[in-house]
C-alpha cells in the first residue's frame, strides 16, 4: 500500500511523487481479472473504486466504535459521535467550508438537491417565479425542480448548450430577472466533461438578479480543487461514492443564513429540540436537516477518502486526468469512425470522453469492451436533455480517475478496433 492509512509515516509520503501505477495498488478491487483479462475500470463518472484506507476505516468503525450518535451517554456513543462530527468538519474543510454547521450529510447529490427543492423550493417559490436550469443537467438537477414547479406554479427556464457542449453564456443575462429565484447548474458535465466557469456565472447572476445559486458538484469535487467560498455560490452538492468514499453518503453545503431560513426537509429523531402534541421546535444546524440515524459509517468512510485524496493532491489529480484525456483523444482519433463529443479545448474539460463509433450501438460497444475486461458506460447517462441536443439516443462513455494509466487507454483503443472488426 503506497498511501494506505495504516502506513502514514512511510518515507514515500514525505516527498509524494504522483504515479498512478503505484496509487492503483491502494485499490484492491482493481487487481482482478474480468472475462480472463486484467480489469480496466473506466466508469469512474458512475462511481469510483475505494482505497484500502477507506475500507479499513469502515471496518474499524463497525468493529470498535459502532453506536448511535448524539444520543447515548456511554463510551461507544461518544466515540461514534466524535468520529461523525470530525468527519463533517474534515469533509467541509476539503471544499473550503469553514463552518461545520453549514455541512449537511445526505445520501448523495440527488438527496442534497431534493433537500433544496422540497425545503427551500416548496417554501419560497410562488406562481410566476422562475428557476433557471441548463440543458446540461443530470436528471437529478431537473426532476426535483419539475416536481416542485408543478406544486408551486413556478416556471423552469433553460440555458442552452452549443454544438461543442459549452453553455451559451452570452444568453445568460437575458434569462435572468426579478422573477428568477434560483439558478441551479452543474459544475462539470457527466456526459461531456465540460467544466463550467462557475465563479463567472455566479458573478453574472448577482449582477442581473437576486437569485440563489445552487451547484451540482458531483463530477467536480472528485476531480479538481473546489472551494465553495471562492466560487461564491449559495449552495453546493456532491456525492461521496464518486470520490473514493462509500455509497449512500453525500453533502449539501449551504450558507448558514440560507439554511436558517429553510424549514426542515424530513422530520424525525435527531432533528428536533422539543416535541409537543401541538408542534415541535427544531434542532440547531446542521442537525435540523438530518432526521433519523445518519449514515455514520458512510461519513467516516468519506472522511478517510478525503484524507486519501488530499495526500494524493487534488492539483496532481486534475493534472494527471488532463494528461490522460489528451493522450486518449489523440489515440482514439486514430480509430476509424471514432467521433468524440464535448469541447475541443482540453483545458475546458474533465476526464470524460463520450463518443460514437460508426454505426455500432453503445450497448454493443460496451458488451464487446466488457468481454475484453474493460468497464465503460453505455446509455443516456441520466442526461436525456443533453442526448436530445446531440441528436443521439445514447453514447458510450469512458471516464478516468487518477488510478487510470495510459495502458488503460491503450487497452480501450485496441478493444475499439475489435468493435470495428465486428461492425465494420
Amino acid at each position, binding site marked *: 500500500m503506497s498511501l494506505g492509512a495504516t502506513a502514514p509515516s512511510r518515507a514515500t509520503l514525505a516527498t509524494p511523487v504522483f504515479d498512478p501505477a503505484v496509487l492503483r495498488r491502494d485499490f484492491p478491487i482493481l487487481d482482478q481479472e474480468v472475462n480472463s483479462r486484467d480489469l480496466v475500470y473506466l466508469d469512474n463518472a458512475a462511481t469510483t473504486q475505494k482505497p484500502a484506507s477507506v475500507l479499513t476505516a469502515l471496518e474499524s468503525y463497525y468493529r470498535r466504535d459502532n453506536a448511535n450518535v448524539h444520543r447515548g451517554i456511554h463510551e461507544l456513543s461518544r466515540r461514534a459521535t466524535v468520529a461523525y462530527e470530525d468527519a463533517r468538519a474534515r469533509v467541509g474543510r476539503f471544499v473550503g467550508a469553514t463552518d461545520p454547521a453549514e455541512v449537511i450529510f445526505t445520501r448523495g447529490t440527488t438527496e442534497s438537491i431534493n433537500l433544496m427543492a422540497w425545503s427551500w423550493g416548496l417554501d419560497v417559490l410562488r406562481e410566476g417565479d422562475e428557476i433557471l436550469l441548463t440543458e446540461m443537467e443530470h436528471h437529478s438537477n431537473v426532476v426535483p425542480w419539475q416536481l416542485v414547479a408543478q406544486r408551486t406554479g413556478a416556471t423552469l427556464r433553460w440555458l442552452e448548450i452549443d454544438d461543442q457542449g459549452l453553455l451559451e453564456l452570452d444568453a445568460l443575462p437575458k434569462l435572468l430577472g426579478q422573477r428568477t429565484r434560483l439558478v441551479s447548474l452543474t459544475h462539470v458535465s457527466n456526459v461531456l466533461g465540460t467544466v463550467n466557469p462557475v465563479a463567472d456565472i455566479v458573478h453574472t447572476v448577482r449582477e442581473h438578479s437576486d437569485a440563489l445559486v445552487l451547484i451540482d458538484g458531483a463530477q467536480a469535487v472528485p476531480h479538481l480543487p473546489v472551494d465553495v467560498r471562492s466560487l461564491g455560490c449559495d449552495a453546493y452538492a456532491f456525492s461521496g461514492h464518486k470520490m473514493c468514499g462509500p455509497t449512500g453518503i453525500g453533502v449539501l453545503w449551504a450558507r448558514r443564513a440560507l439554511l436558517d431560513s429553510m424549514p426542515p426537509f424530513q422530520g424525525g429523531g435527531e432533528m428536533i429540540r422539543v416535541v409537543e402534541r401541538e408542534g415541535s421546535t427544531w434542532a440547531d444546524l446542521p442537525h435540523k436537516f438530518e432526521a433519523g440515524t445518519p449514515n455514520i459509517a458512510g461519513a467516516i468512510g468519506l472522511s478517510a477518502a478525503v484524507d486519501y485524496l488530499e495526500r494524493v493532491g487534488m492539483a496532481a489529480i486534475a493534472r494527471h486526468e488532463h494528461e490522460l484525456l489528451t493522450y486518449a483523444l489523440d489515440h482514439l482519433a486514430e480509430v476509424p469512425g471514432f467521433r468524440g463529443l464535448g469541447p475541443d479545448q482540453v483545458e475546458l474539460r474533465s476526464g470524460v470522453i463520450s463518443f460514437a463509433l460508426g454505426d455500432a450501438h453503445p450497448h454493443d460497444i460496451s458488451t464487446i469492451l466488457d468481454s475484453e475486461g474493460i468497464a465503460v458506460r453505455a446509455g*443516456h447517462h441520466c442526461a436525456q436533455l443533453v442526448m436530445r441536443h446531440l441528436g443521439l439516443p445514447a453514447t458510450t462513455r469512458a471516464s478516468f480517475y487518477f488510478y487510470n494509466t495510459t495502458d488503460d487507454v491503450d487497452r480501450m483503443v485496441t478493444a475499439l478496433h475489435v468493435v470495428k472488426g465486428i461492425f465494420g
Partner: protein
Amino acid sequence: MENPPLKSLYQQLILEHYRKPKNKADLPDRTVEVRMTNPVCGDEIVLQLKIEGDEIRTARFAGQGCSISQASVSMMTTLLEGRKLADADGIATRFTQMMHGDESAGGDRTLGDLRALQGVSKFPVRIKCALLGFDALLEALKQSGHTPVVRDEGDEEETTP
C-alpha cells in the same frame, strides 16, 4: 475475434438484420400499434400489426437501438405474417425459453432466423434487448383480444437510470 462467446453473440445473420432490417416501414392500415422502450438504454420499438380475425396479415416496425434489439424485432416480423395469434404467442414463448437457457429451442425451426440469437443467453444483461420486440408483440396480441399463455419470464433485472 478470438473470444468464443462474443463470436456466438455477433453472428453474421444478426449484423445483417441490424444493417438491413426486414419490414422496417410504416403500416398505414394497421389494426394495432405498440411502442416499447427500455428506459435504461433508450432502445425503442414501435410494432405495427394488421390483424384480421385471429390471423396476423402484416407486421411492420420502427425503432432505434442496439444490434440485438433491432435484429431481434426484424427477425420476429419475418415470422409473423400469416400466423394465427396463438402461433405468434407460441413463438414468443419458445424464444423466451431460448433466452433463458433452454438449448433445445436453438434447434427449433419455428424460430427461423431468431435461432441466431441463442448466444445472447450467455450475456444476461443483453437478454432484455432481445426480448424488447416480443414485449411489444405480446402487448399487441393482448390489445387484439388474445390472452397470452402464462410463461416463466425468468429473473427480472434490477437497474437504475
